[in-house]
């Protein structure tokens, strides 16, 4: 879907090929609201694309520090508690979604999720975006943040409240955010694949913040940048494979946030953005435009790694 990568161990018989070919989505689960958001979004994408859900809990490796001695009894307790949490989560998901549950150990949650994604040949990692801060403000949690700056697998961020969206809502539209510079190929490609898998229409958008020194003719500036954006969008649309259609729209505003607000959004929509030019090839790095969008977006966002040069 999002990535043409094959599962590492692929066998040859037909039945098994079909099995491994089904998409795999890793959900980074924790037994709190953020984990529930991630699980709900993962389940929704899995249901829409008939993907296989790998629900992963990452526990800390106890012996990683140099201060607190390990306690196998306590580790066993945490493991059993986590198995219980996973079982409860799985019960809530129901039997309609193909899934398996996993407990993994790693130095950090992000590291463990990435390792699990590689282990399963997953095409997507889903995490809760927000970790409710002490002050109740929604912000990018450390896990999401770590993944957003290192992952080589696309990362979906479930905004706070995703847990309220029913699985049946499905994916009603895929929106690809096309930047003004070249290099949108990865986003475009991933959006096409996801749109196909989910049987969802595609929309290409370009956000045009007008941020010019005062005194300039705003009308004129508006016109030129919008014209440029439309050119880029049309070029992107021409680059789409045959048989794929897409709507295009350009959003303007005095800032990225305002442009995002200017667009209309479906409840079942998913947005894809590319990585910043700061990313190393084939890795992910959420740039400043992406971060600003994330703050404002009412729907989930998937960040796609920078293509290999």
């Amino acid at each position, binding site marked *: 879907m999002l990535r043409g990568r094959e599962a590492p161990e692929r066998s040859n018989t037909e039945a098994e090929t079909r099995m491994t070919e089904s998409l795999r989505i890793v959900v980074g689960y924790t037994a709190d609201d953020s984990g529930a958001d991630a699980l709900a979004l993962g389940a929704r994408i899995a249901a829409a694309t008939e993907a296989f859900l790998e629900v992963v809990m990452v526990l800390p490796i106890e012996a990683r520090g140099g201060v607190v001695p390990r306690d196998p*009894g*306590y580790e066993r307790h*945490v493991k*059993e508690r986590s*198995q219980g949490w996973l079982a409860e989560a799985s019960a809530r998901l129901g039997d309609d979604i193909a899934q398996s549950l*996993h*407990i*993994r150990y790693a130095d950090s949650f992000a590291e463990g999720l990435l390792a699990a994604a590689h282990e399963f040949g997953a095409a997507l990692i889903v995490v809760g975006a927000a970790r409710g801060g002490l002050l109740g403000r929604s912000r990018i949690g450390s896990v999401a943040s770590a993944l957003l700056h290192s992952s080589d697998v696309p990362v979906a961020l479930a905004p706070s409240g995703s847990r309220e969206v029913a699985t049946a809502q499905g994916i009603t539209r895929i929106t690809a955010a096309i930047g003004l510079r070249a290099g949108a190929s990865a986003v475009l490609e991933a959006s096409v694949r996801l749109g196909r898998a989910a049987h969802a229409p595609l929309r290409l958008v370009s956000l045009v913040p007008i941020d010019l020194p005062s005194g300039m003719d705003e009308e004129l500036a508006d016109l030129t940048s919008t014209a440029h954006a439309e050119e880029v969008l049309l070029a992107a649309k021409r680059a789409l494979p045959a048989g794929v259609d897409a709507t295009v729209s350009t959003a303007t505003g005095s800032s990225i946030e305002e442009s995002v607000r200017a667009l209309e959004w479906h409840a079942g929509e998913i947005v894809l953005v590319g990585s910043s030019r700061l990313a190393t090839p084939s890795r992910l790095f959420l740039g400043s435009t992406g971060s600003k969008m994330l703050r404002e977006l009412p729907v989930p966002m998937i960040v796609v790694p920078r293509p290999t040069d």
Partner: protein
Amino acid sequence: MSQHQQHERAAQAATPAHASTHPHEHHTEPHAPLTTASAMVDGTDPGLTKKGLSAGSVGLIGAIVIGISCIAPAYTLTGALGPTVAEVGTQLPAIFLLGFIPMLLVAFGYRELNSAMPDSGTSFTWATRAFGPWLGWMGGWGLIAATVVVLSNLAGIAVEFFYLAVSQVVGFFGGDAAAVADLVGNPFVNVATCLVFILGATLISYRDMQTTQKVQYWLVGFQLLVMIAFGVAAFWHVANGTAFDATPVELSWFNPFEVGSFSAVVAGLSVSLFVFWGWDVTLTMNEETKGSRTTPGKAATLTVSIVVAIYLFVAMGALAFAGVGTSGVGLGNEAIQENAFFYLAGPVLGPLAIFMSIAVLSSSAASLQSTFVSPARTLLAMGHYGALPQKFATVSPRFFTPGYATVVAAIVAAVFYTIMRFVSDEVLWDTIQTLGMMICFYYGITAFACVWFFRRTLFASARNVFFRLIAPLVGGTILAVLFFTTLIDSMDPAYGSGSNIFGLGLVFVLGMVILLSGVVVMFWQRWKRPAYFRGETLSRAVAED
């Protein structure tokens, strides 16, 4: 084989064999195959991944570092030197050596129990298995009380050294160092600072923020270096004739019979227990230590040798430098006894005294963190088995720490310190002696639990005779004698620091309040949650092999 099938197989293999010992877990059956990277927890899976092995285990040095950082020699010595000298005078080295014996013997039994029944409830779980719910409950209470008492003591020492360090820095820049150092004496400033420290330690423990091994290597290395420098500097002053009260080292320092009175030896011992407390972790780290089977043994032996050597060297240096006179920085001076390094660092180390402050501060910080884990895990186990409200068994879903229990332990430690600071003039001293009594209580119960739990296997081998019978029995008996002797002696209002309430020694009152409130809470829980007390959640057992 497809991945899916592999998962299913792994799920079957990973079905927890321990489920039966955890009756309280409400089991929701998973709707899907469940796999666990069990290798890193159980260590039984032959398919141990490379990553798991390197990240999940501790080498010889790592084990020694954790051991030393749990004992925190810089912190324990500063708290224990004075009170021990007050009891036994120059026979301090003898008492330190003697105090080590019961701790070592009980640690052997502790290790046997830990490998037979690894459980986060340690003393609570083992004593319940051996002796049933009532004694087991009190064993857990003793452990929790001891750790809560030591938490408040640790935080108290950290506060004193914090202000000392600040005053040293202020003095360096020409400020009014004495004014800053005097802030410690203001109970309101003192308590406020202490509460901030406890809050910080709670946050760190709750979020499970651990110093990496590398950082900890440096901190422990630094701590040892400062202690050695202190000893060398002390002897150098003695040789140069610049010591405060040069006292020649004598062989009699190592002879406990020169102390004179049995009560004094007991009082000294009950303080010295505290300096070795926490050492047992090196013995129980057996499962994770990488390398050969002999590594844990080596780690334990080396840890203990290093710590005992440091204690003796520093204690002798301090005695030779300051003597046991009752004026100035003489160790017999009551004014300096409850925090010896605080007063000795300047005269001995001169301009380098700030390093001592940093060593004690960093050692208290590390110890504060490792100590916090202990009551929290025991409270969690008690909640889990229904000996306390279920809430205590809550595991934080985000940090995987015993969140509720950690917060409760912190609140109790904070309240305890605050009350003590206003009730007692010599908080640190009184808490250490109370702590000694609590250690005797729950270590004693644990030692006897070992003998009783293994009663059918005691004579199966020569090894069992020593590790399951003789060592814990002798160790437990010594601790029991210390406990009752201390209890009786401490009724005397002049006992220890001389703090007293209504003519009864404060240490006695504290010990009684802690134990009797334990009994009250126990009966309350018996009424609220009878299942545990009927042995339905954690039954008595006896080892068969």
